[in-house]
């Protein structure tokens, strides 16, 4: 399996763009962020820390190009700078702590929604124009249009505050010690229910509509007719013949949606006080902890690019047509 150079160029440009934004924005904005950061460090502002911040945000006498090279070399060594809020912790440490929780949340929500959305889309396409289709499909379209903030607040209000069914904050019961035991996992599961339910409607809506339209075009293909002609059962034709192929555009869409999913997870984590990347980004933006905000953008860009790359590779494996044309 080899990737087309065009795709690789896209990924390189996207990553370079993110780096460039990180490098340029603090240098172009009116009013230096450096002073506010140093002021915030207060008594912790050792000469070394001040020097590091100055170098990072361009408040030093050096040509811009040289600064940029220094910046990129630093990134290559996983040097994302020092957090202002959590000084002397580095950005890498702060983000590393939160990364796992967000990955857990996002992956769970995607898997959950993929199962539901794809099945709903397949059934809606199979019985196109039926009662199921006419109710579910517009509903999915509406779900895509409702901001995650609204869904998060509604979920929190109904399940967390009014019904008191589920815990309203953090990733696990703070009285528990994290460990490999059943109580801890149970607590993690219960705390993840509301955030996952919040992230899901948008994803289910997207998956349902994509699956439905791709399934409709697949159902017109000759091999589906042949499957029916062979006398296969409805379910066999639907799942083994049609749905398998109709899944491909859903995969493409999934990779492109990841950015939006991160956006949703930011809001969700804030509403439910979930200790992931989103909450870290929020506290960082409130505290004007610029190095953490920048690291976050790079990390999320990297994650989206990684997911796209993965989808490109999977696509090549599962779809022989793509393999053929690449060879």
């Amino acid at each position, binding site marked *: 399996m080899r990737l087309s150079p065009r795709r690789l*160029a*896209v*990924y390189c*440009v*996207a990553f370079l*763009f*993110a780096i460039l*934004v*990180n490098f340029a*924005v603090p240098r172009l*904005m009116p009013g230096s*962020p450096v002073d506010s950061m140093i002021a915030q460090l207060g008594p912790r502002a050792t000469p070394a820390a001040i020097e590091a911040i100055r170098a990072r945000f361009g408040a030093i006498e050096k040509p811009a190009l040289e600064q940029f090279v220094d910046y990129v070399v630093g990134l290559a060594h996983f040097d994302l700078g020092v957090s202002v809020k959590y000084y002397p912790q580095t950005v890498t440490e702060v983000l590393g702590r939160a990364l796992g929780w967000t990955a857990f949340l996002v992956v769970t929500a995607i898997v959950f929604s993929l199962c539901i959305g794809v099945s709903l889309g397949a059934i*809606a396409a199979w019985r*196109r*124009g039926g009662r199921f*289709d*006419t109710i579910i*499909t*517009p509903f999915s*379209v*509406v779900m*895509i*249009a*409702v*901001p*995650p*903030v*609204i869904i998060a*607040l*509604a979920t929190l*209000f109904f399940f967390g*505050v*009014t019904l008191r069914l589920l815990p309203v904050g953090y990733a696990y019961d703070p009285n528990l010690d994290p460990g490999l035991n059943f109580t801890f996992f149970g607590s993690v599961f219960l705390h993840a229910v509301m955030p996952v339910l919040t992230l899901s409607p948008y994803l289910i809506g997207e998956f349902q509509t994509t699956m*439905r*339209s791709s399934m*409709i*075009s697949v159902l017109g293909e000759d091999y589906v007719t042949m499957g029916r002609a062979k006398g296969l059962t409805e379910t066999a034709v639907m799942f083994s013949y049609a749905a398998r192929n109709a899944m491909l555009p859903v995969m493409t869409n999934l990779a*492109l949606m990841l*950015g*939006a999913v*991160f*956006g949703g997870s*930011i*809001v969700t984590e*804030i509403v439910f006080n979930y200790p992931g990347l989103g909450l870290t*980004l*929020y506290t960082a*933006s*409130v505290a*004007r902890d*610029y190095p953490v*905000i*920048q690291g*976050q*953008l790079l990390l*999320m*860009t990297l994650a*989206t*690019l990684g997911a*796209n790359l993965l989808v490109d590779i999977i696509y090549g494996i599962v779809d022989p047509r793509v393999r053929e044309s690449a060879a």
Partner: protein
Amino acid sequence: MSSSFALFWRQKKALAGLVIILSLCLMALFAPLIAPGDPSARVGRSHQAPTVEHYFGTTKMGRDVYSQFVWGARPSLAVGFATGLAITALGTVVGLVAGYFGGRTDATLDLLTNAVLVIPNIPLLILLASFAGTVGPWAIMAIIALTSWPWGARMTRSQTLALRNREFIVAARMVGEPGWRIIFVEILPNLAPLIGINIVGSIIYAIVAQTTLEYLGFGDPLSVTWGTMLYNAQNSSAIILRAWWDIGAPAAGIALTGLGLALINFTFDEIANPQLRSGPALSRWLRLNRLRRRELGAAR
């Protein structure tokens, strides 16, 4: 085209969507008549439940939620609609230019489009907004528009590619029409349904993004918009205090706007892509196809 409009009007979903959006717009337009007085004035005690006096209750600061809801519709809808139009304009121009001129122009623009497409938007927005400090509604608009045009650009580009070698375009080129004229006079009108989808979809996206940014506290705290209402409600722990009206009013406004736009877009989608139709429109389409086939058979 006229049959498309007929289809649009006959669709109950689209009509419902249009009614929702129009009534919200009218409410915003006539805010001074519907809710006279300053929406930021203290008029009651803290967190009063809805009464005849305050239809939607009051906020923690004792402000009237109803009047904030009505006045907040103005900037929320205006920024949402303007941003949606800006996103569409950018995306359409980039897509048209890339698709029509092809070659190196296309390669460069396509690369740029795909690159901006994979960069996660909301984190980028937050980065830009937090360096800029609090940003007013129009700065929010600029930031959103600059980061979210690629979806439309991609769709427009592939449609333009399909059109550029059709006879009427080739003919226009041979007559010697300049490139910009071919793009805007010959190609653009053919993309009308696509642009419609793009506009409504972009407005939806812009409203989601605007709400997110304002909810996170990047909006101008003194302005009254649905997003800043959510932010203020969140900060005064309205949910924990069970002041549901404080959160519910702006949330309902945003959700209703989303609902109305989604219903409109659903119908646009079906017009542009008859394959996707369901319900009455689908059966009409199938009947039409049957008729056409019969006519073809008879002609033969």
